[in-house]
């Protein structure tokens, strides 16, 4: 495995510009991310690409909001709920934030119990995470329904800048899609944990990799909460 033996014995005989050399160069036994499971490295790289997608959404939201001459609807009022006859600003979004943070907490614990080889606790915590995620999506569906009833459309709304609707549906929709996929992903892995699949093959990293995805969904929400709802 040392550098010397690799260069002397493994250097392919193929011509430097041949397709064969390309394949063999990329597949020689070298690793950059030492002591990192390949699945974890790949999940990180996927999340990096997802970071760019969400950044593009948030940047285009910033651009339309900064360039419109119309008044931007006040999110504090748009997302207010009337509870016991009193209007509380942004309350549903606050609850959704706490639900998502709690789900991140249970997921972190699930990863921890996974590495302790505690099958039942891992599966239970993962299912709790998925349940919290599902309730987040439920609240988001409620929020969408409410806004659509109030006349918010991707091309206009009753309160001001028409771009508000398109930004809202695109950003929260894409995030909600990620949460929904995460719920399915976590449930699948949790059932496999419960069935003892990872006890048999010893690959509890799978739980950590699923956890990375879930924490990322929570991470994106931190930025959406700050830039879309609070700004």
């Amino acid at each position, binding site marked *: 495995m040392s550098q010397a033996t690799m260069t002397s014995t493994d250097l392919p005989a193929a011509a430097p510009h041949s397709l064969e050399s390309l394949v063999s160069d990329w597949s020689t036994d070298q690793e950059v991310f030492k*002591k990192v499971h390949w699945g974890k490295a790949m999940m*990180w790289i996927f999340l990096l690409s997802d970071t760019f997608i969400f950044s593009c959404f948030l940047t285009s939201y*910033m651009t339309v909001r900064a360039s419109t*001459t119309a008044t931007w609807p006040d999110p504090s009022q748009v997302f207010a709920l009337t509870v016991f006859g009193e209007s509380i600003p942004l309350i549903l979004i606050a609850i959704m934030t706490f639900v998502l943070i709690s789900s991140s907490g249970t997921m972190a614990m699930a990863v921890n119990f996974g*590495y302790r080889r505690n099958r039942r606790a891992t599966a239970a915590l993962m299912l709790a995470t998925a349940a919290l995620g599902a309730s987040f999506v439920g609240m988001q569906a409620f929020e969408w329904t409410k806004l659509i009833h109030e006349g918010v459309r991707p091309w206009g709304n009753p309160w001001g800048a028409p771009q508000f609707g398109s930004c809202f549906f695109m950003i929260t929709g894409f995030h909600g899609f990620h949460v929904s996929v995460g719920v399915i992903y976590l449930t699948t892995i949790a059932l496999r944990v419960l069935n003892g699949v990872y006890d048999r093959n*010893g690959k509890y990293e799978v739980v950590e990799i699923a956890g990375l995805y879930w924490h990322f969904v929570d*991470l994106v929400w931190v930025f959406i909460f700050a830039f879309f*709802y609070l700004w």
Partner: protein
Amino acid sequence: MDQAIKTGRAGVADSKAQVHDVGQQHPIGVYLQVWGYLFVLSTMSYLVDYFGAEGLLRWSLILTFMFLKAGLIVAVFMHMLWERLALIYAILIPPLCIAVLVSLMVLESDYTFWTRILFYEAETGLSTGGH
């Protein structure tokens, strides 16, 4: 204690997997602590809106709480704090490009905004005042 549990159960799993779960075992307390911090920070950012803080104060508070929360999630929940530098740099450096995009779009949107102001003013003969 963690070490004892791990080595105690190690015999069950195959040896190949053991290479990879060397790094990411930490006391539960760390996660509970971070969980608590995230709750406090979220409450504080909600209160910024609840009490209607405005202008520079509002923006700086929102951004501070946002970056603290994001940092805690990435560092502890996603274990970045305990990863090797090769992975940390590979993941955390590329997003800095977004700062370039954001600064370009700030200039661009400012240009669009003033173009609209001038155009609407010329068209309607009114001073729109931005609203």
